């Protein structure tokens, strides 16, 4: 925990020399305290929650969780500076409102400038929604292959093919996978855009369904359906949802 007005910094990189140069250069700056160094994404999320840093220097390619996934799971008030050898992520980094993007190897002045910017922006809060981050992090034209959820200081990774159902709950979504359920701060509309539209269907204002889990459709009343899932769960299907389901289930050739 920070007791004084100094800037708390977290260093996240899986390579020891990369952490050491960051530590060396940042520790010489006045008014800065290095709170911890982390070697993978899980550690970073936990440290960010426990130590509440103002600024995180974050590598992108790491074990467990990549830099974008870490950014998605930590407090949006924390200013994030990406530090990586890959220039191909730069545009994505700014799409997710990273404060700066420093390419390895860097000049000491470049790092100092990034730190200065980050200190100015710390506590401001990123306005990026989780959906935007997830959308920016994956290569164009592809869908999220996995979802990350924070549960206290624990991180759960849900592969997209194991996601059964998504249910909207105010500002959150409840993700159901293999009999378990996880709460994530995200809108259902935002989540629907990152999921593979050939597999996941928004069957109702409040539900996104993995089509592989659909057992059958039941007619409730005239024009109103319920979807029965393979585990027996019943969820409502709106008229638009029914049309989307029909479009997906019909073989492409028979559409006119």
């Amino acid at each position, binding site marked *: 925990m920070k007791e004084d007005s100094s800037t708390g910094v977290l260093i996240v990189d899986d390579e020891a020399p*990369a952490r050491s140069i960051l530590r060396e250069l940042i520790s010489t700056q006045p008014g800065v305290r290095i709170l911890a160094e982390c070697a993978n994404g899980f550690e970073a999320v936990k440290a960010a929650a426990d130590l509440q840093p103002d600024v995180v220097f974050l590598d992108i390619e790491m074990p467990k969780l990549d830099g974008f996934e870490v950014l998605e799971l930590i407090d949006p008030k924390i200013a994030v500076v990406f530090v990586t050898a890959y220039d191909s992520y730069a545009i994505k980094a700014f799409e997710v409102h990273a404060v700066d993007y420093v*390419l390895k190897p860097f000049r000491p002045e470049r790092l100092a400038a990034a730190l200065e910017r980050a200190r100015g922006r710390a506590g401001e809060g990123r306005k990026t929604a989780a959906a935007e981050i997830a959308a920016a992090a994956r290569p164009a034209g592809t869908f999220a292959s996995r979802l990350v959820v924070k549960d206290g200081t624990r991180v759960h990774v849900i592969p997209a093919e194991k996601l059964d159902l998504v249910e909207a709950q105010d500002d959150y979504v409840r993700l159901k996978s293999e009999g378990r359920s996880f709460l994530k701060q995200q809108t259902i509309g935002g989540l629907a855009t990152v999921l593979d539209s050939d597999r996941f269907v928004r069957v109702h204002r409040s539900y996104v369904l993995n089509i592989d889990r659909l057992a059958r459709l039941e007619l409730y009343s005239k024009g109103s359906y319920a979807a029965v899932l393979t585990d027996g769960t019943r969820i409502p299907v709106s008229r638009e949802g029914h049309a989307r389901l029909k479009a997906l289930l019909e073989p492409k050739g028979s559409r006119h």
Partner: protein
Amino acid sequence: MSALHPILARKGRLAPFLSLALPLAAVLTGLLARPGAFRVGEAISLAWLLAFVSLFLYLSVWYVIRGAPPQGGKLVRTVVTHAAAALVTSSVWVLSGAGAARLLVPLWGKSFPSRYGEQVPVLFSTGILLYLLSLALHAVLLAFEATREAERRALELQVLAREAELKALKAQIHPHFLFNSLNSISALAGTDPARARAMCIYLSEFLRKSLAFGERKSIPVGEELALARAYLEVEGMRFGDRLSIEEDVESDGQTCLVPPLLLQPLVENAVRHGIATTVEGGVIRLEARRTGNRLRILIENPCDPDAPPRRGTGLGLSNVRQRLAARYGTDALFAARHLADRYLVVLSLPAHTDE
């Protein structure tokens, strides 16, 4: 096949073709001057005209062949087409002879056309024979053209394969590897100058070797593995305890030749998609073994099956596949497999020790 007749399409071919008229006219003279037909003078004058007409008339066989290709077409249809074409061509030829006979009246007298008429059956049969002869000659010409075309294509493919190889070589030193290594050197320069210096040396060794390999067509697999070792020494500085190497290389197999930098993308994958995805790291195993006339190479690395997806997966693999196909055709085997938290790549190549 071009629309233009191959003999007319090339300049150098016309003169030898026209010179064919000479033997043809001689044969026709012999035919027309046989006892009971024409006198020699009459035969010569007629034979020359008929020979020149036939040369151009029978070029049309080419268009009949193009219209009814012998391969793939029905045999009966082809035969009927050619039979009809032979009758028509021969008729036209005989008729042109009749015209010539009429033109020659001032020279050989009024009875010349009717005497020509008596020779029509013989000339008509000759016309059919000429058609068949022309057909045979065209078939030979076509086969010749096809062979040349095939040779040209093969050469083109060879050039393309070589270009693909060169492209592959150029693409293989990843800038990220360089930047990450330089970043490590920059870090170590402050804290551990001796290791920074060692890393500069390892990196230079690796670069010098891989640049030199690019110039060569084949290298012994032992040298390729030495390059892999130099690469892994550099990466070892970055990853520390997370990366260790185990080698099982038979001295017998070391001299077998492989395309240069063939294993490099695989070793890079073993680090980037293997070691780098795991928290604890592990062992990269390299194995090269010669069994009879086959060389077997194995690269094994730990990986985290639940690691975040990384970019560029599969590019290195398809690159290796292409190069193997370009060099060995179907004689090389390549397999890559996930086994829980290990990743395994196996290559089996013909074991050559000379070019």
